[in-house]
């Protein structure tokens, strides 16, 4: 039961790993090119374990930003984890403290989104082991290919555009959660606001876009299907 849930979780992530491999390598390569030591690079990958924030931090180190600005930027970029935490929390409510710590630290966009979509579709799944399987394979691949990036240094030319694999992976993951009109409205709103609000300094646009998208989806559901809403009111 445990191992089959874990295996299912890991298997679900296999197609996503294709996008993670270049992302992890780019993070390793960029760190070394920025002058960050291999030790500090691994420290980031092990303890921050959030690619988008790691790349932003490296960019800011490169431009000589102050520690406070770097810290703020990383927290804003990772703010989405708090919303993920809120949405996946019901599935982990019975876990002991240590498990909550472990499952929290291993959270990534991909393992979170794939797990949540799976839990909604399959209520009989064992959330702890499925999510652990999905997250551990992401973790192992992330660490392995960060090391590969450190070792390769500047060997891989940046003009290959391998960084483009990440939005593509997100597109694939996104489709797992699109199943009705309100979700489509959340997607469109989140995307449009993110582009329009991109000039807001310090990644403020990302937070605004996420909140707008969630609100638009919720409103569309509320006003679009009042009868279903009432029928489901006893939940």
């Amino acid at each position, binding site marked *: 039961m445990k191992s089959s849930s874990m295996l299912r979780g890991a298997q679900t992530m296999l*197609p996503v790993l*294709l996008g993670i491999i270049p992302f992890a390598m780019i993070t390793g390569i960029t760190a070394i090119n920025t002058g*960050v*030591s291999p030790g*500090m690079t691994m420290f*980031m990958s092990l*303890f*921050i374990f959030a690619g988008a924030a790691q790349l932003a931090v490296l960019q800011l180190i490169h431009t000589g930003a102050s*520690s406070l600005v*770097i*810290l703020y930027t*990383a*927290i804003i970029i990772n703010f*989405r984890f*708090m*919303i*993920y*935490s*809120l*949405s996946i929390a*019901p599935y*982990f409510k019975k876990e002991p403290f240590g498990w*909550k*710590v472990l*499952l*929290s*630290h291993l959270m990534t*966009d991909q393992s979170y989104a794939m797990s949540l979509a799976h839990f909604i579709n399959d209520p009989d799944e064992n959330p702890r082991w499925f999510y652990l399987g999905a997250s551990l394979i992401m973790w192992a691949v992330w660490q392995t290919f960060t090391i590969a990036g450190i070792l390769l240094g500047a060997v891989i030319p940046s003009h290959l555009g391998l960084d*483009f694999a*990440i*939005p*593509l992976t*997100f*597109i*694939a*993951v*996104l*489709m*797992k959660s*699109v199943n009705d009109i309100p*979700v489509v409205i*959340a*997607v469109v*709103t*989140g*995307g449009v606001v*993110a*582009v329009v609000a*991109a*000039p807001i300094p310090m990644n403020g646009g*990302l937070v605004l*876009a*996420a909140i*707008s*998208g*969630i*609100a*638009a*989806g*919720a409103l569309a559901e509320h006003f679009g299907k009042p009868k279903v809403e009432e029928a489901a009111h006893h939940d």
Partner: protein
Amino acid sequence: MTNSALLPLLSAIALGTFLLRFSFIFLYGRMTLPQWIHRSMRFVPAAVLSALIFPALVIQNGAPVLSIGNHRLVAGLLALAVAWKTKNLLATTLVGLGIFWLLTYM
């Protein structure tokens, strides 16, 4: 910034990031949230991922580029179509990367 000066900064980022991830997984059950928040939660992956995807496709050098000359946008939209039709993650990523390379190097 020297590597020794980086350690406290990176530790603070690591701690902050952990607390964001841990926040509600820890707090859930210790506090009650309004129903509308619970109902809104299923929109989180869609809204956040979309907010990460579209700027990456559209914005080039700080400004939105909505033209066929934007290879990332074209490849991304075609990947979106593939994802929609097939629901296949691997096909989506491969088609997107393939089209992007084709447009860039032809």
